[in-house]
């Protein structure tokens, strides 16, 4: 392996107190340019009636729609302007149905995140083996794998989702594939890093007692790498649960669909219910995964 000269780092040119002052000045100029240009284009307005709108929205948010399951009007009457009865609605039943739909959407989101993460992890494994520096795979292959990982990591899940909805149609399949493709890059990077931290000397020590390749794998490599793989998997899975709640907005199934529905109809009470579920889902999964990852270390 030829040793490349380290690339010149940013710090080499911007070191010292003067350099820092220069950087701070440049940053201040950028911020000023953003503010001034937006003001000049008259884009920094808060709308016609921000305060009243805020109070109204916040008020509706404060009364999540699921409360109606118990406190809704069972005989809500819709009348036309001249007083004719149009129809009677049972608010309790309507909200009960909405909650059922919400539960199903939540389940879909969990399924998308779980399968997408697993698929991403499986696809990333061979790429990680190719990019891990200590395994020294053939150079062109390593570059190709690294390029692939970098590209997938830089493209947002939503972009993948939009493209995939066009290919495989609306529904969870597009979501699963989008999650898998985007998390591929993160998986590959984390997996390669845990392979790179393998203790080669310990592996040689196991070989030195006369162990065969399979025995070396199960006694030296597997116990060293598996906990790190599982930990990375949980971390990205947790991230994907968050990510997949938004995928429904582009028609890839799950909670996002209900979010986009509620926002399009300005039903802030409904949105409040959905966001509450998202919050509970994400925090529960965060806590679970953090606890498991800590136990694995």
């Amino acid at each position, binding site marked *: 392996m030829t040793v490349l000269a380290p690339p010149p780092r940013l710090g080499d040119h911007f070191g010292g107190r003067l350099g820092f002052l220069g950087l701070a000045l440049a940053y201040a100029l950028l911020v000023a340019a953003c503010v001034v240009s937006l003001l000049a284009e008259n884009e920094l307005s808060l709308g016609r009636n921000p305060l009243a709108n805020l109070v109204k929205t916040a008020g509706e948010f404060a009364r999540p729609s699921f409360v109606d399951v118990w406190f809704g009007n069972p005989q809500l009457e819709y009348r036309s302007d001249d007083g004719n009865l149009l129809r009677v609605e049972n608010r309790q039943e309507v909200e009960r149905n909405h909650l059922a739909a919400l539960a199903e959407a939540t389940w879909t989101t969990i399924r998308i995140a779980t399968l997408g993460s697993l698929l991403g992890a499986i696809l990333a494994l061979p790429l990680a083996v190719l990019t891990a520096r200590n395994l020294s795979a053939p150079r062109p292959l390593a570059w190709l794998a690294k390029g692939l990982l970098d590209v997938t990591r830089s493209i947002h899940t939503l972009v993948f989702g939009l493209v995939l909805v066009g290919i495989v149609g609306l529904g969870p399949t597009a979501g699963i594939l989008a999650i898998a493709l985007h998390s591929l890059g993160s998986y590959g990077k984390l997996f390669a890093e845990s392979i790179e931290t393998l*203790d080669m*000397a310990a592996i040689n020590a196991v070989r030195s*007692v*006369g162990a065969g390749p399979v*025995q070396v794998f199960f006694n*030296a490599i597997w116990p*060293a790498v598996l*906990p790190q793989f599982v930990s990375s998997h949980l971390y990205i899975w947790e991230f994907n649960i968050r990510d997949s709640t938004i995928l429904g907005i582009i028609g890839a199934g799950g909670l996002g669909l209900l979010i986009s529905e509620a926002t399009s109809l300005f039903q802030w009470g409904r949105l409040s219910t959905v966001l509450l579920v998202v919050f509970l889902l994400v925090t529960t999964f965060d806590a679970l995964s953090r606890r498991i990852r800590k136990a694995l270390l």
Partner: protein
Amino acid sequence: MNAAPSSAAIALKSLACSAGDRTLLAIDELVVAEGERVAIVGHNGAGKTTLLRLLSGFMPPAQGTAEVLGRALEEPLPAAELRLLRQEVGQVLQGLHLVARLSALENVLIGSLGRVTGWRSWTRCYPPPEVASAETSLHAVGLLAHARTRADRLSGGEKQKVAIARLLMQRPRLILADEPTAALDPSAAAEVCHLLVKAARQATLITVVHNPALLPLLAERVIGLRHGQIAFDLPLARVSDQELGDLYRPDGGTEHRLWQAPSSTPSAIRSVAFR
């Protein structure tokens, strides 16, 4: 020393090892009888580690003949043959090479991988007699209380003791130890040396030593290596500070020395050789 080749643990003849165009080791003849305790001394890069790597089959000889425990090493051995050799050659290495995430007991059980095969060795469900014998080994080095402790939670001295317990478990006929006390403080070093000699009671022991104070603990015969060649090969009683001083003296002879050869104080040489 003049033992018949059949009872020799090691027999090397006109042997050379090289890396690229650099000769690392050139030995005319070296015979070590079974049951001998041999220490190898020499400056850094003298070929000590190369010699051990050769004997454990990690490095094939470039030319000459090498016989270890009756197996010829001339050509790169087939994998199965090499594994059989390694089962009989126990190694204690410079670093403390345990599998970090396994417990002390599991690390000791790795020593039995030559005997235990199949699914039991893959799932680390070792047969009960092996587990019992691993516990005995841990008890012998005084670490039975730490059997369930993970290897990365042990101190340096404890790790090296676990490595020796692994050696006991392996029951090799030849033990190669590469500076087994390099990472240890003096009292732990002496303890590890005692354990190592105890473990080698039924085996041949070859140790690379940097600290002359440990020579009496580990060896009855001392081989000095210098630039890949044998500089001296003497019984322990006849090794004097003079020989050791010559061995560690840098190349340039008198004019470019890093230290002044002390004329009369052996302890001074000792402290130099310590490095």
